[in-house]
């Protein structure tokens, strides 16, 4: 009898705690959205921020965040795919492979502030890229790369061994097999993983404070020449991302509506991450369906 009671109590406790987590989450989301959503409007999303007047927007910051994400992905995906394929297909089990795996693990748990400082020292000052989107993208690559490697490795490992062996038996080279047989099968997993990791890049601030800078030069959205300094596409201009902007207006905001802007920007950030998550799920399911149905 007492064992049964203990079981009931324990179950109740576990359910309560699980409910508590959902409650925290709901409270957190509710708080941010409740304070911020009212402030979001088309104008808010597109106009430039104001230093001291009310009514500033987050247009350039939103653009910078997205652009930085794309730049980071352009650098990370080829590198991460290559390294992940190496780890899963070419690396021979042994001391060296263990060592590389350890390195990936260490790299993925490096504090973002250390990565930022390294970026400041080496990328910004030593290589002379200055506070720029490019420096920021390189710093974010350091973060994102281990994630990408792990995602690729897991996805490649999930490919049925028989598929690989069949292809090799047909006389295809190993690289051809990887490229044409295994990668397409692993693709859905890699894609969802990549989108989820994009959310992390989107919200990163500590590393960008020291690399991408805290100001946004005036952008001329009619100028799409990537070499012109006022062009939004120029990767060598400093860029303040949305997360950094929240940090800045929370700390130094002079505008009378700074708290509202911070709340609005936080809500935008959360919504974007939410969209990333939903997108990853949706695409994952779609791919899975397509893959299993047509085969």
């Amino acid at each position, binding site marked *: 009898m007492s*064992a049964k009671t*203990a*079981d009931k*109590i324990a*179950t109740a406790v*576990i*359910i309560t*705690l*699980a409910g508590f*987590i*959902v409650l925290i*989450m709901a409270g957190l*989301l509710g708080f941010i959205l409740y304070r911020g959503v009212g402030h979001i409007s088309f104008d808010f999303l597109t106009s430039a921020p104001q230093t001291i007047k009310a009514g500033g927007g987050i247009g350039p910051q939103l653009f910078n965040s997205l652009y930085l994400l794309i730049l980071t992905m352009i650098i990370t995906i080829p590198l*991460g795919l*290559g*390294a992940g*394929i*190496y780890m899963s297909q*070419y690396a021979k089990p042994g001391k060296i492979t263990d060592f*590389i795996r*350890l*390195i*990936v*693990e*260490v*790299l993925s*748990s*490096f*504090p973002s*502030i*250390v*990565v930022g*400082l*390294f970026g400041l*020292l080496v990328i910004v000052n030593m290589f002379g890229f200055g506070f720029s989107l490019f420096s920021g993208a390189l710093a974010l690559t*350091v973060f994102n790369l*281990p994630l990408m*490697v792990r995602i690729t490795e897991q996805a490649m490992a999930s490919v049925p061994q028989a598929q690989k062996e069949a292809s090799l038996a*047909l006389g*295809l*080279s190993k*690289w*051809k097999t990887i490229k044409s*047989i295994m990668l397409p099968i692993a693709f859905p997993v890699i894609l969802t993983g990549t989108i*989820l990791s994009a959310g*992390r890049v*989107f*919200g990163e601030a*500590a590393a960008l404070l*020291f690399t991408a800078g805290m100001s946004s030069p005036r952008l001329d959205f009619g100028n799409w020449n990537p070499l012109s300094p006022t062009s939004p596409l120029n990767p060598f201009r400093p860029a303040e991302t949305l*997360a950094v902007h*929240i*940090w800045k207006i*929370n700390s130094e905001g002079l505008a009378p509506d700074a708290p509202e802007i*911070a709340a609005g920007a*936080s809500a935008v*950030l959360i919504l974007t*991450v*939410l969209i990333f998550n939903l997108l990853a*799920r949706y695409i994952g399911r779609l791919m899975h369906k397509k893959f299993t149905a047509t085969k």
Partner: protein
Amino acid sequence: MAQSGGKKRVQPHIIEEWTGKIYTSLCITFLIVTIFSMVYFVAAKGLSSFFVNGVSFKEIFGSTVWKPDGEPPLFGALPFIIGSFSTSILAALIAAPLGICAALFMVEIMPKYGKKYLQPVIELLAGIPSVVYGFVGLSVVVPFYRDLFPGQGLGIVAGATVLSIMILPTITSIATDALSALPSGLKEGSYALGATRWQTLYRTVIPTTMPALMTGVVLGMARAFGEALAVQMVIGNAPHIPTSLFESTSTLTSVITLSMGNTVMGSVQNNVLWTLAFILMAMTFIFVFTVRWLERRAKR
């Protein structure tokens, strides 16, 4: 398109093979070079306070007096080290039971509801940017503690509260993986002997998965240890060892974010800040090695 390579002459076939090998090896080399250069540069900069500026090892790790602009300047980093440890350990203590319970709920109790509701919630928690956590911490957590307890609300408890929510996803997802990897025979055996669910969990499941669960907790701690912006906003930043959990104190990360921009590169204080960054990096290695050790135990 895929099957055209095999029948042709040997040459392109081999070239292709080499392209793949070289490409992937280059990628992995890049990764290795990156981490080595990071360790090298941070270490070189971080150790220069000892070798160039002659700050003694004993002072940084043994003294509690931080007076970078005093006469003579004093760089006792012990308060920050203690602050970082107490905050992240407390955060892990709060988050570990929550995270493990969430995992038990998802795997053992109500897998259907767990997968449908709890899992997305936790994934979303992982995606919320740290500045937003800091913002919420300052507007909700700090006033809450200020009204409830003596003190100003800022301090170790406020920091640990914010951090515990941030590291919850890490602990939960690793615990979930560990629990679902458990062979079902083990549980069934226990049920067959007439044990209740709680007895099964308590006597069989949790002890067997303990090292794996600890892995999650240690990784969560590692994340808490390195988190900067959210902590800096709620910890108070006084460079002293606090007498109460609700008293303003500092962590390694908070003192770096606070002072790095205000000091000139190459100055003694700046170099000491780099030393603190070096300590953070060294701690990452220790955390990762602990995780490895735990994983090896989990496999046995």
